[in-house]
């Protein structure tokens, strides 16, 4: 497939952003120029909203993965683009363990992915602790993927609750190939990257080329020691994947190995981070938002100088994009779900910070502007298909 193939730029018009935060959700809507923004919300005030996604197939169904400090996790559904909401009848949950065996309990649903265009109503969810779930009825009822959740090998790779991120190991970055609904991918933090060509009945580990944390004698062939932070498939060339990993930025073409493309980032910045955004049409263009991954992993902008970095040549070189962002004392953290792009020409980029700010670039990162401040800690940001 040619590099700049497939999808046409979205027609000019308002952009809608779905903002999931630790204390509720918000919806931001722009004017046609993406200059003026209006905030509505909060939805689900006080509830932890881990991810909120609009179904691009019907452009009406919204799902929000929620929990609270006290109550169990659930999924909220809207079929009228957020005007009214109902709770899922059967949220993601692991099976009850047989008597005498230790069962697992979903702490929260972390990730939501709409299914293939040919399967309306199908959704996928990733949870903490790590599990993969599927809904065939627009998110109302969810069933576990036993090929992952109950597989002894996968359970070993997932590890225990102590083997993941501070608020629990997460299954994330569930991807359905836009060309083929049977081709799927997901990441486990930790537990590596996994690929299926039969709709999830069987899976293959794809970690060849990925590095592991040095100095502990970890075996790079063991998925246990791999921590993908964010995976993206290129809409303009679905044979190409990008990955922001605990150990660098990578690209994968076809069935080849992962190639570390973050080596060409400035040494003072490094290639550690959480989010990654791919261009909707050009598979050579991707953006990252580096984080400080030294010593105790502060997970803030290196040196207090936040910036996105863009590659226009598949990772051979990177350019800093910090115009409009704080020049100093800007200790941003941008979580793995909190950066996204639209499909316009030029592409609009968006990120949300743990300090409750939303930043926008209307020109592919050349200039940034803060459009909202004072929201709760932002967990996820998604562009809603218009």
């Amino acid at each position, binding site marked *: 497939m040619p590099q700049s193939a497939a999808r046409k730029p979205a027609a000019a018009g308002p952009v809608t952003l779905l903002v999931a935060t630790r204390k509720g959700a918000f919806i931001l809507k722009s004017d046609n120029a993406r200059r003026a923004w209006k905030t509505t919300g909060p939805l689900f005030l006080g509830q932890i909203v881990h991810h909120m996604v609009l179904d691009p197939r019907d452009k009406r169904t919204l799902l929000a993965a929620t929990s*609270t400090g*006290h*109550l169990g996790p*659930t999924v909220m559904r809207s079929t009228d683009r957020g005007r009214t909401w109902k709770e899922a009848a059967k949220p993601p949950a692991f099976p009850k363990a047989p008597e005498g065996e230790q*069962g697992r309990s979903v702490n929260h649903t972390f990730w939501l992915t709409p299914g293939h265009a040919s399967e309306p109503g199908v959704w996928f969810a990733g949870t903490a602790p790590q599990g993969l779930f599927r809904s065939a009825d627009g998110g109302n009822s969810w069933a576990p993927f036993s090929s992952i959740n109950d597989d002894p090998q996968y359970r070993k790779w997932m590890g225990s609750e102590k083997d993941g991120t501070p608020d629990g190991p997460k299954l994330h970055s569930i991807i359905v190939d836009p060309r083929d609904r049977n081709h799927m991918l997901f990441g486990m933090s930790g537990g590596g990257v996994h690929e299926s060509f039969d709709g999830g009945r069987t899976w293959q580990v794809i970690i060849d080329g990925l590095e592991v944390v040095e100095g502990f004698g970890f075996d790079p062939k063991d998925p246990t020691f791999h921590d993908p932070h964010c995976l993206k498939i290129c809409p303009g060339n679905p044979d190409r994947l990008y990955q922001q990993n605990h150990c660098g930025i990578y690209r994968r073409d076809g069935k080849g190995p992962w190639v570390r493309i973050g080596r060409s980032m400035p040494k003072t910045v490094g290639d550690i981070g959480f989010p990654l955004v791919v261009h909707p049409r050009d598979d050579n263009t991707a953006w990252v938002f580096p984080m400080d991954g030294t010593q105790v992993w502060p997970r803030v902008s290196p040196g207090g100088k936040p910036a996105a970095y863009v590659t226009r040549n598949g990772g051979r070189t990177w350019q800093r994009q910090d115009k409009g962002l704080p020049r100093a004392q800007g200790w941003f953290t941008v979580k793995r779900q909190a950066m996204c792009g639209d499909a316009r020409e030029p592409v609009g980029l968006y990120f949300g910070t743990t300090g409750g700010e939303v930043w926008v670039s209307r020109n592919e990162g050349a200039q940034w502007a803060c459009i909202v401040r004072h929201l709760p800690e932002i967990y996820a940001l998604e562009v809603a298909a218009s």
Partner: protein
Amino acid sequence: MKVYIPDALRSYTGDRRHVEGRGATLAALMLDLDRQFPGIRFRMIDEQDAIRRHMRVFVNGDEARRLDVALKDGDDVAIVQALSGG
């Protein structure tokens, strides 16, 4: 029996602070509440039938930590959300 519902769960009970429930055990009562107010049980009880970490249930003032606690007509059951950080 009378069941006290905490603030966080009143969206399920139409904002009612007290509801009536039935059951010979706490497990049966929870199922009865879920029949009346769909979805409420999973917010309190996980898929392994454990009372969630920050939820507490009191029967006549005594804390019940398991679902096999016996109940009888006239018992007062209080469901309480424990305090957790900001």
